[in-house]
């Protein structure tokens, strides 16, 4: 078949056993992200103190790609300064839409497992749902700082 399977173990594991899919009462930022055409629906919650993402979680439902991607994203950004999270999000979007270098791929850690989604244009929106929601929160957060 011409399409390489992207349902690898990292993806299915994060979908079936997500570490970050739960409530987060101490969150100070919360945003819902929805793909209306396919029904993927997540709510992302972050606890941000002094420019650092101290904790984060999500709830929602949707396809394995949308859910696993959000879970992997949170593993990657929790504990990082906002600027680093922003840069990683930019890298992720670059990975699923065009191409990234080997070094860039390494920075994305487990999120690199989603790179083959670029071969499935219809599913890119599932993979980026969590990251877009994150970006929107970070833009708001920076606007508040100013």
């Amino acid at each position, binding site marked *: *078949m011409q*399409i390489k*399977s*992207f*349902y690898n*173990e990292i993806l*299915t*594991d994060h*979908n*079936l056993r997500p570490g970050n899919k739960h409530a987060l009462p101490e969150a100070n930022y919360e945003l819902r992200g929805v793909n209306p*055409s*396919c*029904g993927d629906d997540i709510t992302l919650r972050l606890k941000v103190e002094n420019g650092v993402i101290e904790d984060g979680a999500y709830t929602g439902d*949707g*396809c*394995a*790609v949308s859910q696993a991607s959000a879970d992997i994203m949170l593993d990657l950004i929790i504990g990082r300064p906002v600027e680093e999270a922003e840069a990683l999000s930019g890298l992720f979007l670059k990975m699923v839409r065009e191409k990234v270098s080997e070094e860039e791929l390494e920075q994305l850690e487990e999120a690199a497992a989603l790179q083959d989604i670029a071969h*499935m244009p219809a*599913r890119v929106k*599932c993979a980026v749902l969590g990251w877009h929601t994150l970006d929107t929160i970070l833009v708001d957060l920076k606007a508040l700082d100013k």
Partner: protein
Amino acid sequence: MIDVTSIRADFPLLASRPDIAYLDNAATTQKPREVLDAVRAYYETENANPLRGLYDLSVRATEAYESAREAVRGFIGAASTREIIFTRNASESLNLAAFCLSETFLREGDEILITVMEHHSDLLPWQQAARRHGAVLRFIECDDRGLITEENFRSCLTDRTRIVAMTHISNVLGVENDIRTFAALAHSRGAIFVADGAQSVPHIPVNVQDLGVDFLAFSGHKMLAPMGIGVLYGREEILEKLPPFLYGGEMIEYVTREDATYAELPHRFEAGTVNVGGAVGLEAAIRYYARVGFHFIEEREKTLSEYAMERLCQIPHVRLLGSEKAADHHGIFTFTVDGVHPHDIAAILDEEGVNIRAGHHCAQPLMQFLGTPSTVRASLAFYNTEAEIDRLAEALSTVRRRMGYAD
């Protein structure tokens, strides 16, 4: 003797892509060579702007277009070609019917009656019509197999029901509504009956006079014809009372700065340059149906449906929606797999070359009623094979394992 092998050879896409099991026929069908050749021949030898040109080529284009109209008339058993309006697709046909019927017949407080299983194309135009005229949009519920009983239908009809719109065969459950009975009941209360034939006309013989419907909408592309050609049948005496839908070229009789008189039926409803190539393709598709015959098509789809039902029901964790009887499905099988999102199922099946549809199938009220926001749908045509159903079943039985489940 017609057999599936010779039929598949008629379809260039099926012949050139043996890697694909195309099971999304309720969305659109593949096209036989005969249809593709007819469209090509029209553009190569007869193309001109029809209905207005005074030269021979334009006259021939007009003849090609009107010949297609006559073919459609015969195919659905209409009394006159004046009752056959060409549109882009069933959606446009239903928009035309909803807009024009509501302008003429709907007053504040009147009721439009539709069913919970309508495709959005047969829901949204009525929603808008009701809103514009202060009318009430009422829904007939079905049971979880998709059945609407006569009793249920009767109880929803009132003295204010002006229009009843209903799908002939559901695009989700495959179930057939008893249009003949419901149309007669609607008429007994003075209501106009509109049928959505998008999923029935390609699969079973449909005769508008026999069914007693006032309007019937369907798409060419779901019945072997090109995309961009559809049909609205309307009973002449009702069409005569309707205002135009779109205004412009070719739909007028006489125009002044302030006013216009409109062309005769059916041209009044076909503003602008029409899709002759599409109509010629539809006529070729109708010829193809005539050659293969509904007897063969229905038998073949029944056999395939029984086989599909048997295979799907054997797979653990696959839950089929609708009737437990294969004959009720008309080749449409909508299901879920426990714990796996339909979009993931579709992607995994695609890796195996099995083409199916996943999502809400443009019927969100029905999906809400059934309690499943999203499902997978495999839909058959007479050119499908048992081997393709095997491929579907085999791929489906690997889905859970590939998504990380133990069984």
